[in-house]
């Protein structure tokens, strides 16, 4: 099988997977308890004709298969309809929140990869040393702690006890007018939630890097390299690390969907207005269009990331059989 055919096959497989995810997404929300009409009319008693009108407006009176086809069409055209709660277009609300989530995820993921990899490599290289012991212990600890708990701890210590960082939000009120100061203000607000997500991920990266590298360091080609007189630095980075990169690449792609989940808790704890928080509010309101849209995006990101990994593997790992 050629690489081209392999990519085509993986793409088709992803499309089928996406279709199933979409279908499941539709079924789950139709089976969930709660009536959206009651949510809109909370606190008021609507006339039956008004209820009928809303049902008609939202297409809830149509047979399920019609609703399904309409749902597929609208989702694939990125038209997620209106939120039952805010009555605003869901697509617009998602786009408003996406940059904040990307910023939080991006910054924390970047630092987690950099620090996790560097410390992981060094810990593996210095296996059994005090540094190794300390970093592994700290990593296990931070990896095991629940995100929300860590977030609360950060708020208490950094925000309340020392009063060094804001307790919530992404900006001061009102924010500085000067663009440079605005960036500093954002960074100041990003610090605690970013640190929380960083700690949540950093441990995982470090442990993974360490174990992968340890495995690589015991391979025959490392012994050969050392026997050839390659400097220890070269052995570590040119031979061992390069081979340990493979799972790293996989994990980067697979971590992104997982990060979205982590963002739900972190964003809620720090009142960080992103997609995670949006998801949480939608769950509280039984806001089907929002939940369908967000879950669709989560599914899409997961499937696309997997597809990317598959394709990248096809290129970088010659052992992959097409």
């Amino acid at each position, binding site marked *: 099988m050629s690489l081209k055919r392999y990519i085509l096959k993986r793409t088709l497989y992803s499309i089928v997977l996406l279709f199933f995810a979409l279908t499941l997404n539709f079924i789950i929300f139709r089976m969930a308890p709660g009536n959206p009409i009651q949510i809109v009319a909370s606190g008021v008693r609507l006339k039956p004709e008004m209820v009928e009108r809303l049902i008609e407006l939202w297409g809830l009176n149509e047979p399920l298969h019609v609703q399904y086809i309409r749902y597929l069409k609208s989702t694939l055209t990125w038209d997620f309809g209106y939120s039952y709660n805010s009555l605003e277009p869901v697509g617009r609300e998602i786009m408003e929140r996406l940059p904040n989530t990307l910023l939080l995820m991006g910054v924390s993921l970047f630092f987690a990869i950099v620090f996790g990899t560097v410390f992981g490599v060094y810990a593996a290289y210095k296996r059994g040393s005090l540094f190794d012991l300390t970093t592994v212990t700290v990593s296990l600890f931070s990896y095991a702690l629940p995100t929300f708990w860590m977030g609360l701890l950060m708020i208490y210590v950094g925000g309340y006890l020392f009063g060094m960082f804001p307790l919530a939000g992404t900006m001061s009120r009102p924010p500085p007018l000067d663009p440079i100061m605005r960036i500093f203000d954002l960074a100041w607000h990003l610090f605690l939630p970013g640190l929380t997500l960083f700690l949540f991920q950093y441990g995982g990266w470090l442990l993974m890097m360490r174990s992968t590298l340890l495995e690589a360091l015991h391979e025959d080609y490392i012994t050969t390299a050392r026997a050839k007189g390659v400097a220890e630095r070269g052995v570590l980075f040119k031979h061992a690390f390069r081979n340990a990169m493979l799972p790293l690449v996989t994990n980067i792609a697979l971590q992104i969907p997982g990060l979205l989940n982590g963002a739900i808790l972190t964003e809620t704890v720090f009142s960080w*207005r992103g997609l995670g928080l949006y998801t949480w509010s939608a769950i509280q309101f039984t806001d089907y269009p929002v939940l369908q849209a967000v879950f669709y995006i989560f599914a899409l990101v997961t499937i696309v990331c997997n597809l990317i990994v598959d394709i990248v593997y096809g290129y970088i790992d010659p052992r992959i059989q097409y």
Partner: protein
Amino acid sequence: MKKTKVILLVLLVSMIIPSILVMAEDEVELTGPWADELFFKIYLNPEAEYLALKTGDINLMDWELPAEKVTDALADPNLVTDSTADLGYYLIDINCQRWPTSDVHFRRALAHLVDKARIETDILQGFGYALDSQVPVVLGDWANPDIRTYEYSAALAAAELDLGGFTDTDADGIRNDPITGENMADVLFFIRIDDPERKQAGEWLAAELKALGVPIEGELAVERSVCSAAVMDTPAGEWNVYTGGWGLGRDPDHLADFYHSKEFDPECVGGWRGYNYPGFVNSTFDVWADLLKSASTFEDAKEAAFMCQEILAEQVPGIPMYGHIGVKAYRVEWTGLVNAVGTGINSWWSTYNMHPVGQDYGGRIEYGIKSDIETLNVMTAAWTYTWEVLDKIYETPYTNNPYDLADDWGWLAESWEIEDWVSPTGVPGIKITFHFVEDAIWHDDVPFTAEDMEFTYNYIMEQGIPRYASSTQFIEDVVLVDDYTLEVYQSTTSFFAFHYINIPVLPKHIWENVGDDWQDYDPVAEGELIGLGPWKFVDYVAGEYVHLVANEDYWKFPDRFYQGLSMAELQQAKSLSMLRAQLEAANAATEEQAETISELSSQFTAFQASALDLIGSSVDSIGDLADNIDSLDSNIGTLDTEIASLNSDISGLESQTSTLQAGLSSASNIGYASIAIAILIGAVAIFMARRET
């Protein structure tokens, strides 16, 4: 642990009782706002919000403190706590359609077994109060204080059971069924486990009943969704006792909704058993419930509400247990907050009245809220926290006494009349005539008129806006009488229908351009978030904050000058005020003079310009005149010459005339002499002739 609980209880009760029972209206200042700015800071994490209050990052917060936070807040010298009763209540629902709870004596026996004092102390621990009526005290005058109550007593309960025939005839420790004579069948309890308070209260009741020889099945402990399916959605109604609870509105019409027989749907045709899922059917109650719903005056509605409460207390389709009390906190640096019934210290009135301690007005209110707001489109907004913002920007025709929900206060409509009315189709209804204030202006300086209110009702009805569907559902017609008078015709006689139509008024000059696009309309993006309220919108940053400023053009904006002064200071202030008035008059006079000077100056300038024009044209005229004079001079010279020659001619003529005159005189003399001679001759001739005769 027990000691701590008692101390906490004492502290809370001492704090709570005054706030519930002492409801002085004079604590409310009708003018406002007194602060300069209002920031809503959005905290989606309640823990962070509370810490922000402690650090002073916010001055006021929205949510009720849990017990552990109350003790912490009470110990914090920077915080002030206050409490209020929630708009809701918890009760034991009793299935009146299933044996043995269909027997009123059995139900009364149950009522005697609810130990409300213990619930207050051991379960609620000061965060609630015992309740006898189905109308909680928060609804003020609607609560009937004279209904039948049931003292907690196992003996009285046993007596009621005996009265109903539920006696232990075979002395086996289990009471016998008065119909079958057999041991009683199990009484089915549905106890909610998702609410620890209700769970505990339900379990106590079950234990008490069991101790009296009534078998209990399972003491079923289920969560809300299961309860909902079993208790409310099943036609068979396989349950006897359920630990229920309700949130309420400001009116007591829930009595009719919860217990009128027409609200009971035994076949679940409408998908559930209806609001009256206990299946209480009582024709006398129905009559009063109908009267409650249709009464057109407060007095009639109140009488009906009282009667409904009396019947319910007698028939016991439900046993009211308790209402919740919430404790909220604010910063000690602020004063003037209003602990409104059902809301607490974060009421609308608080932001309207509050100001920094030691400062009569001004300051920036930092109000923490635990949710982001949604759209600020007043036609689609549904979320509670969105309305925290919107109700400060928009106005409604009237408001209510923050200490008595039954007491309506004139506001944008300073007065109104409610009259009976019959529609052209013969449906009885009411006509409400609003008389609006004449000095209210929109935030964009456009004057408010009754036409705005008329437009609001019509717009909502024409567009069929769901948010206000129930508000306008009985409106038949809206008639604009004049700029400040509006008549609203409703096809119902219910006194409460008046409350339905108390909705925010829209600025016609803005919303008439929105038309059919009300759902997509974003007033913030359009820069058109214009209201009439005490606060003006400045800015909203999603997920972060909302910024409002005091509306200094508000028709109730305070004369801040006299606020908070002593008598001596007041005297000085008044003198100062007079001076100020004089100064203002002088300023006004100066301004008037300045205007006069300005006017004179402009007149002078105009005069100067016209004078210059005149001079210019005069100079030209003078030139022309000089030329004319020269030509006239030459003409005069010519004329002089001519005159001289004429004069000489005249002299000649005069001499000729003299000559002629002299000649004429001589001729005349000759003539006269000739005539005289002729006359003499004639006379002689006549004499002679006569003499001859």
